[in-house]
């Protein structure tokens, strides 16, 4: 090598020397570990740029004590810069391991186009892709409803494939295991209705009609709505998470390839379980609500217990009761369909499962409220 002309100290671990006019030697020493912090490559690159023309860069180990990825990230940037600038790099004087890893890291070029575009799309494409995704999700929903209807028809003809043991577990899960929370909530709703009613009715001295208010409100619609919402939060979320996890683990794909319809195998038992259990839970919730009203009426307003029960019996007709049960049947179907649909639509990652559960609850509750409005309107038209 020819004469050394000048030497520039940068970071204490780096020295750049110049040989024969156009060759730079980058000499490294000391500790090059991640936890010691990495020196910036910017000054080194500036050195190389400022000393044009450079015909070659030599990387040299003049006493590196320890190294890990820290040294490699530094070197890669220097080497990448030199190769884009067309400057040949000699790395023979680096530790053997470093040389091999450098070669390995540069062996497979970064796949062009692999990196994803980030940043916002312009307005129109965004509107377009939103519209497309709404269209897609509508089609998925319609497909799903169609498949479920077909599966249900097969069930009626006794041809649907699912495991009876699944169904009995689900019945237990949606039935007896839901009783404590349904009891608590409906009792409290009965209490609240009784309380609010009592304050108004007391002004007219008509306290005894609290029994009517609680009985009709609970049995006709509130019992069904409360159980619907409880089941949406409790069971709907669970359904979506179960099916979503199966989607993530490719279990649904496994069912499909075996020729088993996931709708029959997974959705049908859940639908049946809720269709059977929701009306039962609703009737139970009605009872608990009336009990809540009874506690307020008898305990707070001092109505005679026998009279309270008598008024309740007077106020209720069988029609009211059936309307309540019809509500709950519809809600059962809606919760089952909405949550299974969200589970089926689940993406392929763990966070998608959480999102599916949330969407199941939201969809179910919206569906319940909309359905209530529609049924109320229909009853009005039919004069019920």
């Amino acid at each position, binding site marked *: 090598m020819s004469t050394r002309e000048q030497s520039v100290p940068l970071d204490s671990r780096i020295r750049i020397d110049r040989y024969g006019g156009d060759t730079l030697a980058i000499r490294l020493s000391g500790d090059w570990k*991640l*936890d010691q*912090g*990495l020196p910036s490559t910017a000054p080194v690159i500036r050195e190389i740029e400022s000393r044009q023309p450079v015909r070659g860069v030599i990387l040299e180990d003049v006493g590196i004590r320890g190294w*890990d*990825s*820290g040294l*490699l*990230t530094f070197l*890669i*940037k220097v080497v990448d810069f030199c190769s884009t600038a067309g400057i040949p790099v000699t790395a023979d004087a680096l530790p*053997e*391991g*470093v040389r*091999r*890893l450098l070669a*390995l*890291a*540069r*062996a*497979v*070029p*970064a*796949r*062009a186009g*692999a*990196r*994803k575009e*980030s940043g916002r799309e312009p307005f129109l494409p965004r509107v377009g892709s939103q519209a497309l995704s709404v269209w897609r999700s509508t089609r998925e929903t319609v497909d799903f409803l169609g498949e479920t209807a077909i599966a249900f028809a097969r069930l009626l003809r006794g041809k649907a494939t699912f495991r009876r043991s699944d169904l009995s577990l689900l019945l237990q899960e949606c039935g007896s295991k839901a009783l404590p929370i349904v009891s608590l909530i409906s009792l409290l709703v009965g209490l609240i209705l009784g309380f609010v009613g009592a304050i108004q009715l007391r002004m007219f001295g008509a306290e005894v009609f609290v029994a009517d208010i609680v009985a009709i409100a609970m049995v006709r619609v509130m019992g069904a709505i409360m159980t619907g919402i409880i089941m949406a939060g409790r069971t709907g979320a669970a359904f979506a998470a179960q099916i979503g996890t199966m989607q*993530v683990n490719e279990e649904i794909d496994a069912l499909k390839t075996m020729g088993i319809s996931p709708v029959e195998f997974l959705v049908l038992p859940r639908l049946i379980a809720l269709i059977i259990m929701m009306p039962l839970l609703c009737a139970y919730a009605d009872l608990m609500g009336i009990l809540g009203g009874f506690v307020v009426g008898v305990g707070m307003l001092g109505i005679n217990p026998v009279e309270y029960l008598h008024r309740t019996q007077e106020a209720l007709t069988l029609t009211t009761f059936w309307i309540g049960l019809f509500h709950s049947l519809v809600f059962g179907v809606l919760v089952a369909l909405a949550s299974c649909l969200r589970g089926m639509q689940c*993406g*392929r*990652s*763990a*966070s998608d499962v959480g999102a599916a559960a949330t969407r199941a609850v939201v969809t179910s509750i919206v569906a319940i409220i909309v359905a209530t409005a529609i049924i109320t309107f229909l009853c009005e038209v039919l004069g019920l």
Partner: protein
Amino acid sequence: MSMPEPVITVRDLEMGYGSFVLMRDLTFTVNRGDVFIIMGGSGCGKSTLLKILVGLKQPSRGQVFHGDVNFWDADVEVRESIQRRFGMLYQSGALWSSMTLAENIALPLEQYTKLGTGQIREVVALKLALVGLAGFEDFYPSEISGGMKKRAALARAMALDPDILFFDEPSAGLDPVSARLLDDLILELRASLNTTIVIVTHELASIFAIGNNSVFLDVEARTMTASGDPNKLLAAPPNPNVHKFLTRGEK
């Protein structure tokens, strides 16, 4: 070569689940720079042994020394500082599915180093480049193939430049070419970083190509029946089961 320096010493280890004993009387040593193979038929307890070595499961009896620390008798802080020097590649890859590849690799760096975001990004790019996945930073695990997942998991296992890398069946589920590439990659990393590597595998090609030390777990005997350089074990099998395993029952 210098004197072998033991990094893991296992003494009279017994392991099992509940009262069920899988293996007993395991005694072996892993030296620095070894590619140590844990061999044995399916279900004999290879993954369980690996879990014990990395400190995810307690042995029912016996000791595991990391350096000269008796791992299961040490304080939690000591155990954690030992575990920080480990990298582990799980049988399923176990990439965190809600994070991109870059985020997967960055997480241990954010936890255990003081690097800034820019430097972390550079280290992440380096690790991905080392496993041949340069440019795949923003992909989610669900968007890449099985072999790529394995390599990304390897990049994550290497994030903190571990002293010891543990692999559970790295080539399971890969095609022969990808499996070969992964083996080459492991060898290359060992040669350049001098990392100690402990591998569970029953891929014969890998065992002979990369292993220089091993232990053979025998399901029937419920203990280890051979240890040492797998090539020497093949040349002079100490018992028929080892021979059968190493020759795939041929001849």
